[in-house]
C-alpha cells in the first residue's frame, strides 16, 4: 500500500514512517507541506494519506479540498492537535476520513490506519 505523509516536521514524518514500517508499510513518500503534496499525488497515486493540519505554504485543510477537487478518492487521516479538534467536522466535510490527535501513541496511529482501511473496504 502506498502512503503519503504530509507534515512540515521532519521529526513527525520520521515517527510516522517508523510506525508504518513496524506495520509493514514501506512504500512511503513524504511531502513537507500542502503544495509539495499536491505536486506529488499525481505521480505517486497514494492509497492512504496522513496529513498534518498546520503547515506553511498550504495548510492541511486547503490541501484536502484541492485533493478531493482533483477527483482523488484515497482515504485521508488528519493529524490534529487538541485545539483543532473542534474543526474536525469541517475537515470531514472537506473530505477527511478519520483523524488522530497529537500526542498519539504508535498503537493509536496503527489503530486509526486499520480502522480507516477497514471502512474503505467495507464501503
Amino acid at each position: 500500500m502506498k502512503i503519503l505523509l504530509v507534515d512540515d516536521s521532519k521529526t513527525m514524518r520520521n515517527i510516522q514512517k517508523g510506525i508504518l514500517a513496524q506495520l509493514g508499510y514501506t512504500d512511503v513518500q513524504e511531502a513537507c507541506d500542502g503544495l509539495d503534496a499536491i505536486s506529488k499525488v499525481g505521480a505517486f497515486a497514494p492509497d492512504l494519506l496522513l496529513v498534518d493540519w498546520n503547515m506553511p505554504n498550504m495548510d492541511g485543510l486547503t490541501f484536502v479540498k484541492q485533493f478531493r477537487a482533483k477527483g482523488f478518492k484515497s482515504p485521508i487521516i488528519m493529524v490534529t492537535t487538541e485545539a483543532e479538534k473542534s474543526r474536525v467536522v469541517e475537515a470531514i466535510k472537506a473530505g477527511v476520513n478519520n483523524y488522530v490527535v497529537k500526542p498519539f501513541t504508535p498503537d493509536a496511529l496503527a489503530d486509526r490506519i486499520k480502522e480507516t482501511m477497514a471502512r474503505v473496504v467495507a464501503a
Partner: protein
Amino acid sequence: MLATQDAGLIRVSTASDLTSAELVLAPDFPTLMLTEELCINLLRDAQVEITEFSRQAIQRLINEAHQGTLKPGAIRVANAQPPVHGQDGRVEWVLEKGHDADTSHYDRSAFITVKPGEVVARITAPTPEADGRNVLGQTIPAKPGRPIRLDLDDAFLCDAQGQVIALCEGVLERHDFKLRIRKVIEVADYVDFSTGNIDFDGDVVINKGVRDCFSVKARGNVKVQGLIEAASIECTGDLDAAGGFAGREQGRALVGGNMHAKYLDNIKAEVQGDLEVDREIVNSILQVDGQVIAPHGAIIGGKMTAVGKIDVGMLGSQAGVATEVILGQVPKLEAFRRRLQPFIDELGRRREKLLAEQKTLNTAGRRATATDKERQTEILFELSQVNHQWTRALMAADALDQRIAQKRTVNLVISRKLHAGVQLTIGRQRFIMAQEMRGPVHILLDTKGGVMYKQGENPPAPLAQVAQIKAA
C-alpha cells in the same frame, strides 16, 4: 626400355626401409640422353610414387645435365613421409605439498587437504596421430597416443576441460593414478616435523604422540594413542588422550565434546562436555562444562572449575600443593548474564529519562504548544521502543537466571581422601579444609543452599565445621 637401362647405366635404387629412392647414374652415362620421361618411367617401373619432390628433383637433374654440371652417382628423387605418432596423454598434479621459504617448519604439512570445488589435477588428452607414406606410396601406420586413465571414485568429477575436481572436503590420497579423499587423517607415527601442524575438517587419529610446540586442530574428533607433549589440541568433537598429556605448562586443549585422558600434567584445558581421567590431574587449569569423572584418579594442585558433578579418588596432597576446586558456577552463562546487565541498566535509565520528560510536558496541559505536542508524540514513540527492548532484555535475563540456577551443581564426591589445605570455592565463599578427611566424602548443598559435607554414613553437617571460610 632404353638400352642404357639394360646396361645398368641408369637405375633406381630404393632404401631397404623404403624411406628414400635414388636415381643412380653410372660414370659413363650419356647425360644428354637424360630426359624427364626417362626418369619418370624408371621410377614407375620401380613402383616409386611420383611426388612433387620427385618431379623437382628430376627437373634439377635435367638442368644440371644440360648445363654439363651433372655428376654421376646417386641422386635422391623420392623421400618417404614419416608417420607422426600420437603423444600419450598427461596428467598435471595441481596440488602438491608445496611451501615456500617463509613457511615455518611447524606449518609444513605432510597432508594435502582439499575443499569442494578445488581442482586437483588436469588431464591432457593424447595428441592425434598421422600416418606416413613410404616411397612406394604405401601407408606407414602411426602409433596413437595412450590416454591417461585415473582411478577416481564418487568424490571427484572430471569436467569437459579435463579438470579433476574434488567434490568434498578431506585429505587427498594419491597412489600412482588412483585418487581418493579421506575424511580421516591418520598419522602413523608422531605429529612432528615430518607431518607439520595439522588443521583438518574431519577426524584425526594419531598412532603415536604429539611433539612439543605442534598443534592439531580438527573439526571432528581427535584420538592420540601416545603421549601428547607441550602441544596444542583443538577439536570440535571428542579428544581421547589415551597416552596422557604432559604439557609442561605449555600444553593446551580446547575440546568441543568430551575428553578422556590417561593423565593430565600441567596443561590448560576447556572441555565443553565431560572430562574423564584414568589417573592423576596434576597442576592443571581446567574448565569443564560437564562432569569430571576420575573415581580412581587424583586432583593434585592446579584449579578445576566444573559445572557438573566431580567424582574423584583423591583431592589435594599431603605436601599441601595448592589445589582449588570451584563448584556451582556456570562460567559461560554467568559471563553472558554479566554482559547483559549493563544493557538492561542503560535501557532503564533511558526509560526513566523519557518518563520524566513526559511528566514535565504533561503538566503543561492545555498550555502545551504545538512543539510540546510534537515532542510528546516523539517521547511516546521512543518509549514504546525502549519499553519493548527493556521487556525483552528483562525476559532474557530472567531466562538466563533460571538456566544458571538449573545448571548450577554443587556435587563433589571424594572416594578415598580429601587432604587438608584444599580450597573449595562455592558461590562467594572459599572453604579451606582444615584437616585431612578419609573418604568417601560428599560435598553438597542442603535445601536452603547451605554448603554441607557428608562423610561415610554420617549425617550431613555444615562444611564450615571442618573448613576455614574466607570470601572468594
